[in-house]
């Protein structure tokens, strides 16, 4: 199992959600939250594939966060 922790001040929650949806068919996912992180746990029988999916998902979440204006933009939008 690979555990990815996305800090709330660096990644948009919506970006993480969207990234997980994008990779939903490629691994087993479990989502949870910690006070400072969005947590994504993923599992695949093939260790290499698991690493690859985890890495690509992380990149995608980063890319989407940047594209949407960064982690601060959600707070600005709510304000």
């Amino acid at each position: 199992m690979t555990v990815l922790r996305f800090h709330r001040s660096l990644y948009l929650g919506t970006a993480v959600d969207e990234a997980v949806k994008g990779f939903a068919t490629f691994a087993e996912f479990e989502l949870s939250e910690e006070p400072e992180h969005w947590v994504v746990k993923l599992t695949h029988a093939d260790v290499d594939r698991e690493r690859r999916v985890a890495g690509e998902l992380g990149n995608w979440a980063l890319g989407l966060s940047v594209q949407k204006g960064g982690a601060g933009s959600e707070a600005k939008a709510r304000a």
Partner: protein
Amino acid sequence: MAIDLASGSARVELDESLYPLEAVYGAAYIFIDRCYVLLDRPSAGRLRVTLSPKTGAATEAVLRPLIGELANELLSCAWRYEITKANKTVIEQITTRAIAGAMGPPSLDELEKFDFSSDAFEDPLGIAMSWEDKYKKKKDAP
């Protein structure tokens, strides 16, 4: 800065007062075609960037140049962030002039498709209001 051969990754920890988040995003982003990139905040005021090469053996010879390139890109992005703030007006003016000059005026077809109904600006004095709307007789009001 650290190289973790066990996990095949290189990590750089930063002082956020020196490298604004926008600069960290910009620097980290350029690696996503060849590395898996993860950002984290180990403590208040600190950021951490972890790079793991997508392919090939993640040896020290591979990871060390990645750290160097990341460091250079971080400096470049941080400085660019400051320059852009300082020169925002001239950058905007040149870009606007260049794009407007290249685009030219809209055609009648393009004007027809333009949505003039959206509120483009606040009008507290009613300057943009038509004479009829401004002086509409009360009996005509719905």
